[in-house]
């Protein structure tokens, strides 16, 4: 209100003049209007006394109560203050860390594609172990197993491919439900408009403010299936590739949780696009699956090869 310029001359009388004087006393007028009020006061000594009285009231209130600013806070308030600062600092730090990592990840994904990100962010020696920890959304220590051979996984999935247009549409509409982890989807964003480097960002947040960010993008190397976990301080990062898409999860959650989230995301992706069983290039439109693959024409089954997800594959490798 007081930052706006208005016709000073037409409002010198009545309530507006009164309001102007208060705004002048409270130093809430822009310089030009302040000057105009001072010019007005120069011609109205009675108003000068009024302004002086109002300013005197403000000074008087400070004299009355400012000494309480120098008193130490009671112990009960200090404790609460400490708790609030701790909560706020924790939230700020974790969000900053996730954002920094996320920004770096987006830059890498957009510039170099999903699998460059895998190589860039993954930690050597961790990949195989992670595979063994996935089992249908379960990531308890009991479910963990020795390292799996990622090379075997690549070999097992070299003969299938997805329909690029369909997969691209799915990518844009895919928003996994992570409520069972206490995470709510708060923001989605398309990082790049170019089809080749399209990256979808999904931001989830828990009730206590911890964020988990997910990035989905098509990969150049559609045949690879890999998985990797890395950690930067308190931030866990999980990357995997499946069916021509790369998935990246970043969040201030522990290793087990990020693995469980990744497994749930993978399951929901498969539920939406089919359990990684895609028709070959020779299949007719009628033979293409929809949903969970249950309506696949029996006559076309010979053209279909199942693709085992990296999560399941990790468990299978362990079971052998």
């Amino acid at each position, binding site marked *: 209100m*007081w930052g706006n310029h208005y016709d000073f001359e037409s409002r010198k009388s009545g309530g507006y003049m009164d309001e102007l004087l208060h705004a002048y006393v409270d130093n809430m007028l822009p310089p030009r209007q302040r000057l105009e009020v001072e010019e007005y006061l120069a011609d109205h000594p009675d108003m000068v006394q009024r302004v002086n009285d109002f300013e005197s*009231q403000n000074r*008087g209130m400070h*004299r009355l*109560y400012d000494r*309480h600013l120098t008193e130490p806070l009671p112990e009960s*308030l200090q404790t609460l203050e400490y708790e609030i*600062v701790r909560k*706020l600092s924790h939230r700020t730090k974790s969000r900053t860390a996730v954002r920094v990592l996320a920004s770096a990840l987006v830059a890498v994904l957009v510039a170099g594609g999903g699998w460059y990100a895998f190589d860039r962010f993954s930690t050597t020696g961790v990949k195989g172990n992670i595979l063994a920890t996935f089992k249908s959304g379960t990531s308890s220590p009991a479910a963990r197993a020795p390292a799996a051979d990622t090379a075997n996984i690549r070999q097992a999935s070299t003969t299938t491919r997805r329909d690029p247009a369909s997969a691209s549409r799915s990518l844009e509409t895919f928003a996994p439900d992570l409520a069972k982890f206490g995470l709510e989807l708060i923001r989605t964003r398309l990082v790049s408009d170019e089809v080749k480097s399209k990256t979808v960002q999904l931001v989830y947040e828990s009730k206590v403010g911890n964020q988990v960010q997910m990035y989905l993008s098509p990969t150049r190397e559609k045949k690879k299936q890999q998985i990797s976990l890395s950690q930067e301080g308190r931030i866990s990062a999980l990357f995997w590739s499946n069916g021509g898409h790369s998935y990246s999860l970043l969040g201030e959650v522990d290793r087990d949780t990020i693995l469980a989230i990744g497994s749930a995301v993978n399951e929901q992706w498969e539920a939406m696009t089919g359990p990684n069983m895609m028709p070959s290039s020779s299949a007719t439109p009628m033979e293409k699956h929809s949903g969970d693959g249950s309506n696949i024409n029996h006559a076309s089954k010979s053209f279909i090869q199942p693709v085992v997800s990296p999560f399941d594959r990790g468990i299978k490798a362990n079971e052998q």
Partner: protein
Amino acid sequence: MDHTVGEVLHAYIKSLRRYAISLTRDSNEADDLVQECLKRALTYIHDGGKILNMRAYLFTILHNVHRDEMGRRQRNGTHVPIDTDSIRLAYAPPQDTHMECRDLSEALDKLPTDQRQVVLLVGLEGLSYQMAAEVLGIPIGTVMSRLSRGRNALRNMTAIEVVTQNESKKNHQQEAEGWKRLVKGEKTHVG
């Protein structure tokens, strides 16, 4: 601990406590108000709430708590504190400006609560009119009218006090001079 967050919040809490004391005129009651306010803020943050303007948020909560407390008292009858030390401590001014401050303090006390809130939020705490409106949940025009009425009322009350004091001083001087004359045997009217 994040120093920036901590320092800013510390300053806000000090300011909030000063305002609570000026509003309630009782440091114990003010501390209870601030404590309840911080508890609610902590719960809100813990539950994942986002606070965009911490200062405005704290003042708003304080007002809500204060309003609830006033309503409760009206229903249950007025509470009269036995220990009046906290009240004296709340507004005991420095000696050199004792009279002036006492007048202002008493005048503030006589203001209706809604006007006192606005006068204190703007004049003491330096809140913008917009922020005061948000804190109190009223339109900015209402803030302006309450501020104007409150300040003019304070001005009238303190002006009357000054006049009364001057009159009183004058009467004392006349009385003293009358007694002097009486002592000297002069005929005069004393009283």
